[in-house]
């Protein structure tokens, strides 16, 4: 659940068109979760402009890829 709820996208750092599931959910993180297993990250991203996991430039979208270095990034 940590991976669903942790903020992955920062305003001003990441493209404003980048989306994750956690942005649309109301979830509560159990602080004990990190005693059950180590953090892991399987976040799925999509571009709100294309509605797919690829940006307008055809390349995959992720937090590490959509941080201002692509021509299609919007802030």
């Amino acid at each position, binding site marked *: *659940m940590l*991976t*669903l709820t942790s903020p992955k996208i920062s305003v001003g750092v990441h493209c404003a*068109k980048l*989306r994750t*599931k956690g942005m*649309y*959910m*109301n*979830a*509560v*993180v*159990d602080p*004990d*979760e990190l*005693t*059950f*297993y*180590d*953090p*892991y*990250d*399987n*976040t*799925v*991203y*999509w571009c*709100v*402009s*294309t*509605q*797919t*996991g*690829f940006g*307008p*430039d*055809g*390349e*995959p*979208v*992720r937090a*590490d*890829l959509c941080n201002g270095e692509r021509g299609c990034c919007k802030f």
Partner: protein
Amino acid sequence: MANSEFDWPAKSSVLGTRVNRVDGPDKVTGRAKYTFDINRPGMLYARMIRSPHPHARVVSVDLSSATRMPGVKSVLMVRDFSSAPNNRVMFQGDEIAAVAADTEEHAIDAARSVKIEYEVLPHLTIVNKALDGTAPPVFTGGNVRDGRPAQAGDLTAGFAAAAKVVEGTYSTQVITHTCMESHGTVCEWAGDRLTAWISTQGISGARENFASALGIPQANVRVLCQYMGGGFGSKALSVGAEGLMCAKLAKAANAPVKLMLDRKEEHLATGNRPSAASKIKAGVSADGIITAFDAQSWGTGGAGATADFPLPYLYQVANRSRSHKNVFTNTGQQRPMRAPGHPQGSFNTEIIMDELADQINMDPVEFRIKNLPPQAPNAMWRAYLQEGAAEFGWNKRHATGDKTPGPIKTGMGVSVNTWGGGGRGPSPAHCEITSDGVVIMRLGTQDLGTGTRTLVAVITADALGLRPAQVRPEIGDTAFGVSALSGGSTTAASISPGIRVAAVKALDALKEKVAPALGVDAASLVAAGGRIQVENDPSKGMTWADACKHIGPQAITAEGDWRAGMSSTTTSGAQFAEVTVDIETGIVKVTRVLVLQDCGLVVSRLTAESQCYGGVIGSLNFALFEDRILDRNTGQMLNPNMEWYLLAGMSDIPRIDVRIKDQPERGVIGLGEPPTVSTAAAIALAVRNATGVTMRSLPLTPAKVLGAMRQGRA
């Protein structure tokens, strides 16, 4: 938040009872309308045009012939492919264009007529080639990306303290969501206002996605999803290229458009559960404590998407190290799939647990109990393992390898699970009681098929002293208010408090209307058994129908929202499985599964049990049948259908006993994910117990079982 009138009641007439689905009759009679069933006047039918190649450059696209085909009203490109780097397709099924026509057949014909010239590029679909560096460079920044490492304690000291060490490689396969209802949308414009019927796990999210993608205000978009035929996470994200193109085609054609995907598209382009593999070395002390756990893991989530999972899963290891690699392949991207990461983490962890237990001649249940976190309300595995072992007849389990004569061997396996499932607000609910006695509970959530309507009716009826059938739940329409998407088992915990608060407030208003007629104080009244009456004095009361006559022409309305203390987070569960294995054919038959599962306060017991049945069956499919098979040369999927993509039939379903463990003091917690985490590992361990051969890779096909037995791994 104690001592509030909104608190869940200590005694309940409906909560936690076995209530039939309130929408069951509508579903079995066909009155329930799914997106597929929506038909609008003058509606067109649309099809997507997709790449047949896993990796290619689009040299040219000629839509002219399609536009001249009979009945065609609109043809649109998904994006501009005219220049690099935008002109690459990255997986088989990648979207290129879409067409709308007056009939489905005309749309299919037109889609076939689109002329696309491809320059086929070297593709990457074999994970090991990416890992060993022999794959072509496909992805910007590399084909492999490191995941988040984890390290604790002293691995060297841990292995030094071990009495025994086990090493192995474990893996689970890519599977697809295989929703009964495919992804799809019906879009209709009225000027700059869009109405979209879409099979989605989040109508409010779909509204935002449509609005942002189309550049219109959210207020101009209304999204409806009254019923849906399964999502399992694949419908929790965007509206998809198909949803967006449906809206654009409808706008361009100035007519409503229906765009439903076919089964092949479902397999290729609407998500999947990533593969998960690990090479693990673990040590155990003579008294059954895991002293060290060293893992290197990897997996593919498709083209540019991650594939991480928890490892080790649940068991406490002071000395551990784990590294992970996300491998990108030219395949459809992953999407969340029922308990994302947990079934993979469970399998990759649980198999080596039994191997370690065998090394020190310890019972697997006892070994697990020694290594689980301390017992707590959110960590009940120890109790469930002991209780489950007693009920399942675990003491009859033989040592690894069934020594009885004959080809049919039997075995038992066990595994544990957890999931958050906590929810919070905002999650507004609106209750109306009218003078004719009708109760409406309205909120902007949606029902994935899990029984949300029944949950709404149960909570409302319980608060009002009615039967669930007397409540009219209204959901599945953004006109009913904003709500979170249904994912991560968060819906029940998010919406239940607001429903009860709204119902209790509405009841308070009704009591105020009724009290003068009865000559009593409103605070002395209760709702029970279809009556409003003085508590413990039925003679001073009246029926619900008579009470509502005091409402007058203006209905009672009340609003509720989520309140802290009425819901909680984190479930515990344990599952036991029994199998038979025919060692001559390799066929595995699951004969029994026992589920022990908590979910806090049980709102609807039948619905909770249904979640467990569905979770077990889904995980049985994962264990025995499902597998996305790719051609090693072309990279294309070989089984994108329901014939060769295998799922369990009725005769494959075992006896499933569900024991829901009530924890009413914790409030409501979601239940969709956890029951599907454990079954696959328990089945694989039961096969190990039956055959004496450790199955370290899913699915457990007959060929794989026979192959493993030939190799004699144990």
